[in-house]
């Protein structure tokens, strides 16, 4: 089981997919297909705080586009 302290000591990378959904991934591990690093790295808490700053519209991109087309 991963405790909060253990998780915080690992360096994480902020990653994003084509739907502009953000998540975190252990830095140094190959990023899964369909995701790319944003360039931000740090402790788990720092990465999550960064996500909170940049992920302002949480709707998947395809849905945002469909809504824009309909409007």
């Amino acid at each position, binding site marked *: 089981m991963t405790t909060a302290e253990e998780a915080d000591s690992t360096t994480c990378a902020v990653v994003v997919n*084509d739907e502009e959904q953000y998540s975190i991934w252990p830095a140094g591990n190959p990023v899964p297909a*369909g995701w790319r690093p944003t360039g931000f790295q740090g402790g788990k808490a720092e*990465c999550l*705080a960064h996500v909170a700053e940049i992920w302002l519209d949480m709707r998947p991109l395809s849905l945002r586009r*469909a809504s824009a087309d309909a409007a």
Partner: protein
Amino acid sequence: MTTTADAGAPARSGNAQTVHELFERRVALTPDATALSRGAERIGYAELNARANRLAHLLRERGVAPGSNVAVCAERSPEVIVALLAVLKAGGAYVALDPKQPYERHRTLLADSGANVLLTQEHLLAGLDGLPEPVGHPVLLDRPDPSLADRPATDPGLPGDPERPAYIAYTSGSTGTPKGVVVPHRAVLRLVTEPNFLTIGPEDAVLQFAPVAFDASTLEIWAPLLNGARLAVVPPGEPGLDQLAETAENEGVTIMWLTAGLFHQMVDGPLHRLSGVRQLVAGGDVLSVTHVNKALAMLPGIRVVNGYGPTENTTFTCCHVMTEPVESDTVPIGVPVTGTRIQILDEQGRPVTGEEPGELYTGGDGVALGYLGRPEQTAERFVPDPTAPGRLLYRTGDLVRRRADGVVEFLGRADHQVKIRGFRVEPGEIEAALLARPEITDAAVVAQEHTRTGRRLVAFYVADHGLSVPELRRGLARTLPPYMVPAAFVRLMAMPLTLNGKVDRAELRKDVNRDRPDLGSDYRAPEGEVAEALALMWGDLMEIDGIGADDDFFELGGHSLMATQITADIATLWGVEVPPRAFYENPTVAELAQVVEELKR
């Protein structure tokens, strides 16, 4: 690469991309079939569709559009089903508010969801008074707007999108505020179209009993309506076990869902009345092998299904279908449901080998879009799926093990989350509510196991001076749902700590304190045979010694499931049937004893 539903979901549901489109297809196929029933009341597919369409057009005029969240606060009824369909048809997502939950909770959820319209019933209006705009002028479901009849009965026909939210389901949040899980249409379709854990068709009738705010309702409501079956709605209120079994019997129910606690009580009670049920789905918590086996033995031909899954993966993730007695020590959670992939990972996020235990991660079409307006918490729990490009895996926090035969077993939680009467509870949310009181300087909430009543929450707190327990309980009940209000409150001089300086929760779980709580009233001994027996009966269930004649059932920590159990004990001991409302109208030992005495005559 996109995360829109892969080829699987649309193929399984024809070309329908959304819940209401699939429903509309059903309407075209069997317009005259019964969609809803409640006693003698029958609503056909075409009629339900027309009613939902009229309301959907009204909602559109009230500003509901794709992307809107619409609150529904109503008692179980056919109107609620009309309302949910109407919200989806108007492009919105429904946010169910349970009428049993406190007003302050409603305010919190309305603000958090940003709902722009509220749908409710006339008798609930008083409890919803003074809400801010735009929900301050609710739409009444049971006193429909006279202009509704003039609205078109035709489908609004907005372009459907499988990724659009269908509902927001609020769950307990460990940081002190509830969080809304955003569930898209494709996730609902993945649960109910050609499920591998259930067979369902036009000949079936499914019981609607779960609160809409509880995600078991997703299965109860949409499985029948998207498969041409009938939804049998249980009358409003809190039926006793016998009433529930009677409704299932009278409505010809063939499929029903029960939370684990209720399933166990049903098996020990009027199970024989469920002889018409072909598939009994139970879950929300650990099922007992004994009860599953008893159900299988007593109801020949029945299939008992253990349904497991977090709300974030849309009601079910794994199911175990049983027709033969279970021979293992625990009831497995089975195999992934259709449209679901699971992974069991170790602490470093690597797949475990063989039958090693690990944390369950789940992916596929059932994964929610995240937590509404909570990017941090979403990114923490919804992580990249290494096996499906661009897709998400939800990290459940549940520890499981895959047996050699491929069946998965549930082992426990990786964190403090507990299940109380089938509801998921983060003790941290209750601790935050306790610490919000100025008198309380430290608090910890744990679940303690009890042989008869199952699990109950016990709050331990440190305070400068003693607090009246009923006052504390009332305070929490103003903001928390009933199942999150602890059954017992224990004041400590200091919290026990582990060697690392953290609260020793294992120690607290063992600390069973049977003292009568500080009720702010004097103890008076119960008088007479019935009152004395009742005080002992309550004490056994609540684990409290020395309950007094004037002590209040709810202030002591009693709840409706406990009342059901006491009703059964009273029936066994004195051969009388106490109505469920007796506990509300006569909440003290002396008052309830009087009810029993009168019934005995």
